[in-house]
């Protein structure tokens, strides 16, 4: 039995497959040998010319070639696919240092951030946030706060009037008066009142005819001045760093009695004395006191039964101190180069101990 034809085909295939370098040629080669009219299929057709005893051996030899060719082609296919993938990956390689598609982020205003931080602290202590009118009546802006028309302290805050009785609020305190009034003499009252306020100041680096204020008010039975001190101490430590201390200095506000100014130990120099604290080691940051009995009474609370404390601070001033902002007008010109510096969140890490 002559099987030389079989070996010839196998040799020819082995030679041919070596030269194949792409998927398409390999497919052609596959068809050339294993296709319906292929060379290996052609060998099978020889079978009929063989004797019965030769047929099994011949068949086995052809099958061996077929399976040899099949496996070589499969192997080759894998190699070619790997090569093709590698080439594609190589081709698709990009410069990862180029910028990503921009999804530009906006930035919160530094005053909003400051106000939100302060709000969140007091919400944690059980306070609610109350807002009020920016255009107020003389009654709520002054009289209900123990500032009758003849009161000399009205000189302290020259105001923008629209008519004899209507003005832009000079502080957020009218919100306190309105909040108390709405409570109809029933405590507890625990509110934080943030908002814009207006005073007749010429705009310069340290004055603005419009600025922001946050006030807090607590009214209940048995509220002590020590509660005010404790609350503000906690606030100072939370907002300006765990090592901050506070100092109360007697002062005067018509709506509180006793009244105090509250200083915190300087968060920049830690009390050593620097330009932020004007070398005193202390920064004046809050005005506060025990709610004046006249204020309680006018708002419908019995001053024998109830007492309370109130405090107020300026987010503009706090943000200026904290970030070293040199000009209050920067808050109101809305230069993106300014606002966008306040984009990233702060988490009270070790860079800054404040807010």
């Amino acid at each position: 039995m002559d099987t030389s034809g079989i070996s010839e085909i196998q040799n020819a295939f082995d030679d041919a497959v070596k030269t194949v370098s792409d998927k398409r040629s390999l497919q052609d080669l596959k068809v050339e040998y294993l296709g319906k009219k292929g060379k290996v299929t052609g060998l099978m057709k020889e079978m009929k010319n063989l004797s019965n005893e030769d047929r099994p051996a011949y068949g086995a030899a052809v099958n061996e070639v077929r399976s040899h060719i099949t496996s070589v082609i499969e192997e080759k296919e894998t190699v070619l696919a790997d090569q093709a993938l590698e080439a594609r990956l190589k081709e698709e390689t990009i410069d990862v240092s180029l910028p990503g598609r921009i999804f530009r982020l906006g930035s919160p205003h530094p005053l909003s951030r400051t106000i939100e931080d302060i709000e969140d602290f007091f919400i944690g202590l059980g306070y609610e946030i109350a807002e009020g009118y920016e255009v107020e009546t003389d009654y709520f802006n002054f009289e209900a706060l123990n500032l009758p028309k003849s009161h000399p302290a009205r000189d302290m805050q020259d105001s923008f009037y629209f008519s004899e009785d209507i003005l832009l609020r000079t502080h957020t305190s009218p919100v306190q008066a309105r909040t108390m009034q709405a409570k109809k003499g029933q405590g507890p009252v625990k509110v934080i009142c943030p908002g814009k306020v207006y005073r007749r100041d010429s705009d310069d680096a340290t004055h603005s005819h419009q600025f922001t204020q946050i006030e807090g008010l607590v009214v209940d039975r048995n509220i002590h001045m020590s509660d005010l001190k404790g609350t503000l101490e906690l606030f100072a430590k939370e907002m300006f760093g765990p090592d901050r201390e506070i100092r109360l200095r007697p002062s005067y506000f018509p709506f509180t009695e006793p009244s105090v100014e509250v200083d915190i130990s300087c968060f920049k120099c830690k009390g050593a004395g620097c330009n932020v604290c004007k070398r005193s080691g202390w920064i004046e940051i809050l005005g506060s006191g025990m709610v004046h009995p006249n204020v309680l009474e006018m708002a419908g609370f019995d001053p024998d039964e109830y007492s309370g404390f109130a405090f107020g601070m300026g987010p503009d001033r706090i943000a200026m101190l904290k970030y070293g902002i040199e000009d209050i007008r920067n808050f109101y010109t809305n230069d993106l180069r300014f606002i966008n510096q306040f984009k990233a969140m702060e988490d009270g890490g070790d860079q800054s101990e404040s807010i």
Partner: protein
Amino acid sequence: MKVSKEWLNEWIPVDVSIDELSEKITRGGIEVDEVIDYTEGIKNLVVGYVESVEQHPEADRLKVCRVNTGEETSQIVCGAPNVRADSYVIVSKVGGRLPGGIKIKRAKLRGQVSEGMICSLEELGIPEDHVPKEYQDGIFIFNRDQNIGTDALSALYLDDQVMDFDLTPNRKDALSMAGAAYETRALFGGEVSRPGSPLTEHRDNGGNGFSIKNEDADAVPYYGARLVKNVEIKPAPVWMQIRLIKAGIRPINNVVDISNYVLLEFGQPLHMFDRDKIGSDAIVTRFAAQDEKITTLDGKERSLMDSDIVITNGKDPIALAGVMGGDFSEVTQSTTNILIESALFNPVSIRKTSNRLNLRSEASARFEKGVSHEFVLEALDRAAYLLEKYAGGRVTGKVMSDGELDLENSEITVTAEFINNRLGMDLSVAEIAESLSRLGLGTKTDGGTLNISIPSRRDDLKIREDITEEVARIYGYDALPSSLPEYSMITPGKLTDEQKKVRIIRHQLEALGLSQAINYALTSREKSKQFTDRTEGLELLMPMSEDHAVLRNSMIPHLVDNAVYNANRQQKDVQLYELGRVFVSRGEGNQPEEIEMLGGILTGEMNHTDWLGTSVPADFYTAKGIADSLFEKLGLSDSISYRQTEGYEEMHPGRTADIHLGGEKIGFAGELHPKYAEDNDLNRTAVFEINIDRLLDVKNGIIVYEQLSKYPTITRDVALIVERSVTADELIQTIWTAADKYLEDVFVFDVYEGDNVAEGMKSLALRLTYLNKEQTLTDEEIEAVHTPVLKALEEGGAAIR
């Protein structure tokens, strides 16, 4: 109030440094704003005696002086016109220092040796406007003999530091040396010694023949006066002059200076009349008649109002009470007989008068806060005594007066329990009484109750809370413990739904690339009329400037300003939002309606990736997309519609839409009118403004969950040719109305105008999504719904391609 330490020590000796003194006073509640140290930068300053003065041979304006400075007599060249022989002067010796880093060296001036310098007060650091006129253009000359060679600062009472008190309005008691002394006593202990007035009353011909009458006790509750005859007008002694200078008052002559000096001592303003110019033998006080005239001593004629108080001679006003004297009754160089006024005036009236006439003085500042009754007579006697001593005057007769002084101490009753409850402290009755006694307040105790006697100098203390403050203040706030409130009821601290939503809106806009702006609520009249259909804004009575004269009606004008401001600083891509109020006038005299508004502005490009050349333009659709993302977050998408509007002059008439929530207009979005943008040097710019209050009013309750459908959705695309004016919204509405079931979603996926589409027409392609949640939709079922949809579109004028 400027308080000299040297002067204070005369009232109450305190042996501490100026730093300790001012620190303790500050912690006690009177802020020491500044300490002025008159010794700073001064060395080797002595009293010299000018023995002779000769003209400098080479210079007309210079004199060559022989000056005895104690151990030696030196030659000093001096340029002052008032230098004269036989006078005592201030000499800075060679090697000496003067403020401003000036060193005195041996020098030659035009050939003449000069060993030292004869000084003016300005050269010692005293502001020119406090220097007496006679020394203003030259050197200072002592008006009494001095010890030659002694320290000149001591001789001048300038070996001293002065504290500038920044007083809160309630501390009028500290507007005097007496008040400063009592405050010092409260903080340091010791005793206050008031200056005495051992005057001699002369009975000349049985009295002074003068009467006082207050026509209106409301205007003038008390008026006291004394007559001092035969005064000699001359300079006051140096110590008095320098104390006035240190307090910020320029010395004039002995009579005026004594009046000011006593004002500083007791906080009681006085007025000195030339008795012989009063024009009658009576003082009558009253409210002025409306439009009554007076010429004040500054030579100006003033027209008065019936709230002003005048001192008259029974006929004509001779002084504007507490504010300024009249011209003809003023003390002059030739005055010999003086009437001293010491009175109480209605504080509110004084404040109104001095404000209206813009005449603020040391006197009016005290009267308008109310002066203490207890010093009225003491000050009157003191001034009479000083006139006797330093002006050679003869105090004639007794005090003449009309009205009542309230010299009884008032009383406040308070319990220790009350004070301790308000403070959160645990002070004993004795500790409280001790704190109060340091303030000079007498206390009687009865068990836990304290009865506190309040002298009139502390008439700011009226209620028990005032006492609580004085106790805390003197005891020291450092001793106050720290605690947290124990509430009668626990209530949660949280944001309201509306407050939460506002925060979410802000954070979302920032995530979309808009930064937050804060603008002024006050704007110009012109801007108040832009981007609004309101023609009136609420106007200030007295605006500070035209730019801030009226309340804003829209957020957009200032946001445009912000965009321009940034564009001028190389920031071409600007995306800003602002949350704030606009104000709708309800007429003068009423509070306006305040509406919380969201304004936004987009100019340049958004999300611009340069190297890819991709970006989002600042056009109508971007503004709308941003607004829609907010409506989606608030769950309001289904209630929102946009309606084309030409209602804003500043907006592009073809690219602006009013935003409606349900049936109500809540804002607008669009592109700036090209002309308006150009006028502001802006390129294409989109803006939006939304009434946030209206958005927040809508309560959405809870999210309703729906199970996911197991069955597939089927889509059908429809291509239509319609007239250009037909809006996508109209077609979508037609489709929704026509489909009776299964329709889940419709959206436009292509819009085309141009080739193959007739002029005035456009091609729109819409995709409709159908779903049956119960089972898979069959073709027949879809056709049953879809066919009427197509029919409705055709009936509406659309051609289906």
